[in-house]
Structures are given as structure tokens and as C-alpha cells.
């Protein structure tokens, strides 16, 4: 089974809905969505530990974990449909009634899609040899300036079809710094005039496809 976020969400839902119903199920699903969706499946145990305030999960943690691993190793035939629509309905209802706790009401924004469009457009305008130099430069700077290791690792792997960009909980400030390192790399290779144009086009392209105001790509250019 291809390990997309959607597939992982369906797997978690498939397992949890056998044990949990109603509020408990949706709260757990949102917790997973906000804090674990970007992480690898090996962190699912941590997710179940995090749900110790939900008695049904706390009491069956090891069993649920085995089920989750089993279903993720499976071919995907047993997976329930993606629960995202119901999750959003639940979130809206809770938001209206004001009963959702703050952590889940204001989930960490997922910049993956937007950032990927920015990078794809940006690197798409570079020759392959220039792109390699820019990427290497940005990687070196990321390591030197202690940008989140997860982000640097993901950026390093990104660029071929096998490895999608996974940003995890990367802070916006880290995303801005990485983008700046890429910009400086382009400056060094092509000069600042082209670098300004390329960065500008990348941000504009991402803004055109972005539908979420919270992940407006122009925020990547804020102070």
C-alpha cells in the first residue's frame, strides 16, 4: 500500500472506529491529523500513548497498535473510506459551539502542498545542473544554521518521484529560512535579478493553486 497521508488516515480511522464512537473518535482523529499525519507510521505508538485520556484507547493500546501495523502492511482492501469529510463536519460543529479545545481548534498548518508547489516551480525554472548546485548549497546552509533536521532531510530526499516532500511539524520560520537559502543559491548561480524573478514566479504560482488562507505562500516572504 502506498503510504500517503490519506491512506494512513483511512487506516487509523478503520482501526479506531471499531473501538471508539462519537466525540472520542473524532477527537482522536483530529489529534492524529494535526500532530502525526506528517510523521512516519513508526510514530503511531506515540500517537496511541498521546490518547491516554481516552479510556477506550488507553485500555487497548497494544492491541490497537498491532491492528494498525497489520492494516498498514495489508494491501488496503480492508480500509474504510477517507473520513476527512466527516472530520471537517465535526470540526465545524464544535467550532460553532465553541467546545473544541484550542490545540485542535487551531491545528498546525500543513504547508506541504504549498511548499512543494513553490519548490517545484522554483527548481523547475533551473537547469538540472544548476538545480543540483542550488540544492546542495541550501542543504549545506540548512545544516550549518541548524534548521529542523526533519525538514532538511525531507528536502534532501525530495526531488525525485520516489520521495514526496514531508514537512511534518516544521515551523514557518524554518520554511522561510530554507527558502532563503535556496534563493541565495539561485543568486549565486544566476545572479540576483533572475533569483528575484524566479522566487517571485514560484510564490505567485503557489498562491494561484492554494485554497487555504492560513497557508498563503506569501507568508514565506514575511519578516
Amino acid at each position: 500500500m502506498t503510504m500517503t497521508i490519506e491512506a494512513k488516515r483511512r487506516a487509523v480511522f478503520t482501526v479506531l472506529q471499531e473501538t471508539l464512537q462519537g466525540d472520542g473518535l473524532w477527537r482522536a482523529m483530529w489529534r492524529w491529523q494535526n500532530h502525526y499525519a506528517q510523521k512516519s507510521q513508526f510514530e503511531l505508538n506515540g500517537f496511541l500513548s498521546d490518547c491516554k485520556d481516552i479510556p477506550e484507547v488507553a485500555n487497548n493500546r497494544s492491541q490497537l497498535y498491532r491492528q494498525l501495523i497489520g492494516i498498514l502492511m495489508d494491501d488496503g482492501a480492508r480500509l474504510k473510506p477517507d473520513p476527512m469529510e466527516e472530520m471537517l463536519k465535526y470540526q465545524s460543529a464544535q467550532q460553532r459551539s465553541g467546545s473544541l479545545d484550542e490545540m485542535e481548534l487551531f491545528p498546525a498548518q500543513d504547508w506541504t502542498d504549498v511548499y512543494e508547489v513553490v519548490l517545484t516551480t522554483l527548481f523547475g525554472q533551473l537547469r538540472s545542473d544548476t538545480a543540483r548546485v542550488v540544492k546542495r548549497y541550501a542543504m549545506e546552509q540548512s545544516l550549518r544554521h541548524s534548521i529542523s533536521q526533519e525538514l532538511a532531510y525531507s528536502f534532501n530526499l525530495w526531488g525525485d518521484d520516489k520521495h514526496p516532500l514531508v514537512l511534518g511539524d516544521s515551523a514557518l520560520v524554518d520554511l522561510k529560512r530554507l527558502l532563503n537559502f535556496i534563493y541565495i543559491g539561485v543568486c549565486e548561480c544566476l545572479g540576483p535579478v533572475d533569483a528575484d524573478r524566479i522566487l517571485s514566479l514560484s510564490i505567485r504560482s503557489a498562491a494561484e493553486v492554494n485554497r487555504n488562507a492560513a497557508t498563503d505562500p506569501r507568508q514565506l516572504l514575511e519578516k
Partner: protein
Amino acid sequence: MKWIMWTVLSTLSVPVMAGETSVELSINTLWVVMAAALVFFMQAGFALLESGMSRAKNAVNVMMKNYMDVCLGSLIFWLVGYGLMFGENFTGFFGASHFALFNTSAESQSWDYTVLLFQIMFAATAVTICSGAMAERTKYDAYLIATCVITAFIYPVFGSWVWGGMYGGSGWLAKLGFIDFAGSTVVHSVGAWCALAGIIVLGARTGRFDRTTGAARSIPGHNLSLVALGGFILWLGWFGFNGGSTLAASPEIGLIVLNTQLAAAAGATGALLFSRITRRPVLLTSTINGSIAGLVGITAGCASMAPEFAALTGLIAGAISVYGAAWLERRRLDDVVGAIPVHGFAGAWGTLAAGLFLKDNMFDLSQIAVQLVGIFSAFFWAFPLSLILFFLIDRVIGLRASTQHEQQGLDFTEHDEVGYPEFHQNVTYHREL
């Protein structure tokens, strides 16, 4: 020649002391104040020229630096610089009285005020040369600190060597007979050597030079119309700069202003010819820089040169400005507006030319030697000191803006406002409304 020094020094102090009539004093004052206003207007020229040669995202920052150069320069030169430059100078190395004109005598007071006003404009001109060379990557606060130190110390101390002794004593270069009528070296070269130190400590703008080949990449200015307008304004202001340096409404002004005009015109022509001969494109920026180089070049000898030699001085200065800009580029020194070739190299040439083409005493070897001593003194005074200054600023508060600020543009990061909010073509910054 001694007579020129005598003329300059005597016009500084004589009007009141020799019992000048109140009408003469009034006319002289009127002329010098008007000239000061013209020199003040040069700041607008510098601001437009430098801003136009910078990218749109740094236009406000460049303007702000020019604006604050005048503001801080005026206050600091009034408080400290004037006393160091023109105060009693019995050592020959610095003045030591008349700080803020506190102890000026009642009889010379009105004239002192006039000279101070005029000299404030000169100090502001010297320091503003740095802003253009160091544009687009310098922290605003760090730049302002450097401005204060240059205006308070580096510029006036060298000035005292040449123009000092208005209230007693004399500068050591003046005693040698060094000719620098309106400041090719005192104002322009000193400013340029400070700028050279600044760009060495700063480094080039990101991406200005190819890392592997070292080839320079063009970073065009955002508005060449502003550059042209700035050039015209500077040219106009220079009539006050050179003409006002007589410090008297005297008949010599005609020759001085004519020489100024011819040198500027020849400077642009020199830049054009040199560009053509060396198969370079004839750029607007280098043409305007050529005329400014002509103006800088004639500043030292505008009162002591025949018009044909003024034109020759300007012609060569214009060529030097084009060659000098390329020379700096080959050394990977990023001077955004070409301030160093225009003010430094052309200033040095002009100072030498003032000795070479001295009316009635051309090619006098002893005079040429004195001119060379003055030229090198300026370099070895201003360059190392400002190198130390910029290095210290860099270590203590940082001189260079961060790469993120360079990316977003200093208008946005330093001032939170942008020059062209409605016409900004490249999205390099974002501010939530």
C-alpha cells in the same frame, strides 16, 4: 602655488577683519548662503542618482541614507567637525577651537555662521558618497554610526590639513602649498576612500559575481530617469559647490563656474569616447557618471586653470570613471553606483591636474610632488581608519544585512515601507494588511 592658498585662506577670514564694508559682507554672505543652498540640493541629486541605480526593493533605503546623511552630518559637523577642521590649528594636524561656534567673537559671528553653513553641506556631501557604494546590503543603523564617525573625525581632520587655520595656524598640507580649491581630495576622495573600505568589509551583493569564474553580473538600477535627473541636479549644485568656495561674490566666479561646466560636459564626452574606443556599450549610467567625474576632477583646480585645461581634466576624468568601474569589477569589488571611480579616482586625477595645469606655472615638478603628497595622504588617512571603523562596526553590531533581508529588500525589512507598493513587479516580500 602659494597665492591660491593665500586667496582661499584670506577669503575665509578677511571679510570682517579687514574692515570690509557692510554691503560687501552682505553680498558675500548672500552668495555663500545661496551656494550652500545649491550644495544642499546636491543631496537630492545624490539621492535620486543612487536610488535610481539600486533595485526597486532598496529604493527607500537609499533615499533614507542620503536624507539622514544630511541630518546627522549637519548636527555632528556643527558640534564637532567644524572645530576640528577650521578651529585654531597650531600643530598643523587638527583644529581645536570653535566647536559649535561657542567661542566665536561678536564681530566675526555672522560670517562664521555663513562659513559653517557652507561647510556643513560639504561634510554631508563627503559622507553621502559612501551610501551609494554600499547600497543594497548595509544595515541602516550600522551605516548611520559610520556616517557619524566619518563626519566627526575622519573628514574634518583631513580637511584641517588642507583648509584648516581659519582662526589661527595652518594645516601642514596647506603650508606645503597643496592646491585643492573646492575639495576634489578633501571632500570627494576622502568620501570615496571611506566607501572603498566600506565595500571591502561588506563584500559584494549576493550573486553579484559568479563564484567560479568571478565574472560580474549586471544588476540594473530600477529607474534610469531618476539617475538622469539626479545627474542634472548634481551638475547644477556643483555651480554652488565650486563657485561658493570663493567665499566671496568675486569676479573669479565666472571662470570657476565656466570651468565647472566645461569639465562636466567633457567628462560625459570622455566617458562616451572611452566606451566607444574600448568597445563597451555607451550606458546612460556611465555617461552621467562621466560628467560627475568631470565635475569632481575640476573641483580642485577650477579657480586656477584655463578653460581648455578644465575641459581636458574633465575629459580624462570621464574616461577614468569608466575604466575605474571596470577595474573595480575585475577585483570583485561591488560599488553599486560607481562612487569610487567617480569620486576617488577622478578626484585624485583632478587634484593632480590642478598641479599639472596651474595657470602661469604649468608642469611645475615641485607643485606636482606636493599634489601627490596630498593625494596619498588622503588615501592613507581615510582608507585605513575607515577600514578599522567598518570592521569594528561589523564585529560589534554587524554591518551587513542578513540574506533574508537582502532577499526581501531593505525598504521592507529596515523601514517597513516600500518605494513602489503598487508597481512592485517581483514579489520579494509580504506584509499582511
